[in-house]
């Protein structure tokens, strides 16, 4: 029995060790491999809607490519639910089984993959394909790691706005806020008029996390989060405190719907589109439901949006806010060969025009987005904002912080906004969490 156990233990360690080592011998900066193009099946592990534009277009492009290269096929493995996707990506990475292409945000985990040379240098790749200059700088910046290196290719470009219902604001006697600091008072007025001020998807947690990023972005600029995540800046610093106090004020003014923490994405949107909530913070990926005739006729003409308000002494400008280019696509170094290279060249050149034709913003500037026939005037107005962006952008914190701190922040934020903990408790818990977890990820 004991002998059996010992054998098993040895086997266990061996199996784990086998999985842990091994890996890419290829060079991440070798972007134009030489040799013959041998068509085969390649896979793309992605986290995008199964029936969405990106997948449909890439499927079509892959089919076109296969016509000239018999034997080629693109296997799209999508897991739209982000937490499930991340779990899958991590297990695959742990087992050293990442496919040719895979999606990831510029997270600390991805950075570690990049450091181990597992992702092809995307900047070199795009330059080599001659498409680098087509990309919007901010779309690429969103994908970059802290050190400026680029390993992911964007397929989208989105702008986040605060959508609002003109009639409800009027009813409460308030107007569009000039400063972020106006928001709590605005919520109080709306509540007095019996209106839910802001509809928020609390279940998915990233929406609330956006709010904590706003004040520091205005107060201290994009550097704050870069420092905070490494423990070089703290929540107890002035910019951090301003954010903490503001979040508490939002909670006290009952800005979000009651019981928001357990309400999902659709619930929140329904509250806004049914005319119950006055404001709704969401990106241009929702244009088809907010700026076309699909929108409930009762609120259609009353709907408008404003961009992230500034504050007094704001170091960032009004045209600088959250403009993500979505989850990016990384290219696996280990399996990068002439075929992958050739297919990417084929697809990335043709992708933007196809994508813009669906009414979405392309991550490149060389194409014009088609406004759908059923769009309201807001659609065009929203698209035009993309041409008028500043140089800085507010990064969503969930892609920046190490995962453990991020999870803790999401949990503590809800407590702070609900008034279950004080700003002091919040500050010390979070600063401790960063101190404890950041060193492991940002060595």
């Amino acid at each position, binding site marked *: 029995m004991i002998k059996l*156990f010992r054998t*098993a*233990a040895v*086997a*266990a*360690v061996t*199996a*784990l*060790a086998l999985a*842990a*080592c091994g890996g890419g011998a290829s060079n991440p900066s070798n972007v134009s491999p030489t040799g013959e193009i041998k068509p085969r099946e390649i896979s793309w592990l992605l986290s995008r809607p199964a029936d969405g534009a990106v997948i449909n277009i890439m499927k079509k492009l892959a089919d076109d490519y296969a016509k000239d290269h018999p034997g080629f096929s693109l296997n799209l493995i999508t897991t739209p639910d982000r*937490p499930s996707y*991340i*779990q899958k990506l*991590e*297990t695959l*990475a*742990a087992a050293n089984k990442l496919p040719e292409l895979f999606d990831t945000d510029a997270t600390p*985990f991805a950075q*570690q*993959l990049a450091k*181990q040379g*597992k992702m092809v240098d995307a900047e070199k790749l795009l330059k080599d394909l001659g498409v680098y200059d087509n990309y919007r700088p901010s779309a690429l910046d969103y994908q970059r790691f802290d050190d400026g290196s680029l390993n992911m290719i964007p397929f989208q470009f989105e702008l986040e706005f605060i959508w609002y219902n003109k009639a409800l604001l009027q009813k409460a006697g308030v107007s569009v806020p000039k400063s972020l600091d106006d928001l709590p008072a605005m919520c109080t007025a709306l509540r007095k008029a019996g209106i*839910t001020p802001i509809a928020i998807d*609390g*279940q998915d*947690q990233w929406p609330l996390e956006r709010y904590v990023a706003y004040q520091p972005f205005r107060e201290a600029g994009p550097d704050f989060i870069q420092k905070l995540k490494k423990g070089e800046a703290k929540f107890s610093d002035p910019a951090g405190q301003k954010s903490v106090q503001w979040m508490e004020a939002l909670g006290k003014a009952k800005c979000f*719907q*009651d*019981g*928001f*923490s*357990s*309400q*999902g994405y659709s*619930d929140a949107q329904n*509250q806004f589109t049914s005319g119950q909530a006055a404001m709704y913070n969401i990106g241009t990926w929702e244009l088809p439901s907010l700026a076309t005739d699909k929108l409930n006729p009762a609120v259609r003409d009353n709907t408008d949006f404003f961009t992230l308000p500034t504050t007094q002494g704001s170091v960032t400008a009004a045209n600088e806010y959250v403009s993500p280019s979505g989850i990016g696509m990384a290219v696996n170094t280990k399996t990068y060969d002439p075929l992958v290279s050739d297919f990417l060249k084929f697809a990335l050149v043709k992708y933007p025009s196809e994508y813009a034709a669906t009414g979405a913003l392309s991550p490149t500037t060389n194409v014009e987005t088609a406004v759908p026939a059923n769009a309201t005037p807001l659609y065009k107005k929203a698209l035009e904002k993309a041409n008028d962006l500043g140089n800085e952008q507010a990064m969503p914190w969930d892609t920046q912080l*190490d*995962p*453990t701190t991020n*999870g803790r922040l*999401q*949990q*503590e934020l*809800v*407590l702070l906004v*609900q008034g*279950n*903990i004080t700003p002091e408790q919040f500050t010390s818990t979070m600063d401790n969490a960063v101190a404890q*977890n950041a060193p*492991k990820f940002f060595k």
Partner: protein
Amino acid sequence: MLPNRSRLSVLVFLLPPLLLYGAAVLFPILQSLVLSFFSWNGISDMEFVGLANYVRMFTGDDIFWRSFFNALGYLAICLVLQLGGALLVASLLTSLSRGRELIKTLYLLPAVISTVAIAFLFVRIYSIDPVGLLNQVLQWIGLGALERPWLSDINTVLAAVSVPEGWRFTGLYMLILYAALLSVPLELEEAARLDGASRWQLFTKIRFPHIRPVWITTTIMATTYGLRGFDIPYLMTNGGPGQSSELLTTYMYKTAFTSTDFGYASTISVFIVVECLAAVGLILFMLKRKADA
């Protein structure tokens, strides 16, 4: 033991199941045990850290203890609902003369629905804005003062996520207990009734002692399933608000797959295994002693 059996025949029957079980269950547990002494994020090299993970778990991790006590609370509510509810319904059912089969079937139905749908349904039931079923019912019966966002209130959320889990499998345990209750010899009951025993006495003195062995089994089943609970809290609240509904299992899962701290997650796994073994031992010990007394 069968007289004509050979050693070989035992092996023939035992080896295949043991192989599957060893490969799918025992070996991974062993691997977890090994991993629990390492620090490993899945992609970099494994680093041996000795007992550091255990020290961190017991002394330096407030969330661990929080989830441990939450898991106990969750377990308690599930047990009350599953065992108490099952015993109640089973007893009631024995007094019914018709329609038992139908009720037994209906009672099992929730078990077939996927947890995703159950979680979504209960989120609606607990909701306050728009008003959900629970708050509406409270309003109707004049308990409007109790209305609240059940899943956002840190005082009610643990109970709120436990109830669906308890509710789902009540039917299963009810069936088992019901069968046991039917096996109570009629003569015993009749004799006690003639002696003037009340319904309650009948239950505590005759019926319950008779079904005790089955009761032990069901308690063990319900306890271990309760300690394994995962889907519903994970889907409904993801452990929140704060850590109010974080269980050891959800915390372990997040540590592994969100924080990519596989070593530490394995340490928590080992703790869960030990905890479950201890719980079963405790139940056996308590119930056996009571039976002997």
